[in-house]
């Protein structure tokens, strides 16, 4: 069983469209994240979310919104897609307070291409 699964793996869409990327984890973790990896491979956190709070990186445009129907899912919804949104998006999860077992588990990524 895949621990953190993302769908779709590839997404090609036109500018101006609205799209969603789904993420599910079966690890029982209490915190989930979205990271963006740009063309230079730089990984930047976009959101972190647990059942208590959503923390948004202030540099993320408000066209991006995370939606969590339950603690095992954190979907990423993007409105009015722009060319600059093209990137690989990684979902991850972790369990707070479980040091030294703490660590992030990453999904396999979604390559978004906006044309």
């Amino acid at each position, binding site marked *: 069983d895949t621990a953190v699964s993302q769908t779709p793996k590839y997404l090609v869409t036109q500018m101006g469209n609205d799209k969603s990327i789904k993420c599910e984890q079966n690890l029982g973790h209490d915190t989930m*994240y979205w*990271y963006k990896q740009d063309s*230079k*491979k*730089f*990984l*930047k*956190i976009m959101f*972190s979310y647990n059942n208590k709070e959503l*923390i948004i990186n202030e540099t993320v445009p408000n066209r991006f919104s995370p939606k969590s129907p339950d603690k095992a899912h954190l979907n990423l919804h993007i409105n009015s897609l722009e060319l600059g949104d093209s990137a690989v998006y*990684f979902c*991850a999860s*972790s369990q*707070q*307070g479980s*040091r*030294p077992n*703490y*660590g*992030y588990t*990453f*999904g*396999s*990524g979604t390559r978004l291409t906006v044309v």
Partner: protein
Amino acid sequence: AQSVSQHNHHVILSEAASLELGCNYSYGGTVNLFWYVQYPGQHLQLLLKYFSGDPLVKGIKGFEAEFIKSKFSFNLRKPSVQWSDTAEYFCAVNVVVGRSQGNLIFGKGTKLSVKP
């Protein structure tokens, strides 16, 4: 805010050469330290991590890293690289406050190319 610096953008080695990738972080408190590897077209995989105790940490695939607190460094090493080690390597840090772990902050990555 904490930051992570990886000194080498691209490292090119021949097989059997020794590897050391530098990583420094900026935060004076308690941190967790990680090295991740990303093979071409794949997701991030954890190589090793440090939380406390022995500052020399051994990971998978023959990698190890040494935490030097006085230098705020966590360099990755491997005595003899293989062609299959060609990948992007990311150092990452998160801050520990009580029982809470902060978000994982990544360095910009080092691309390792190993020539056969």
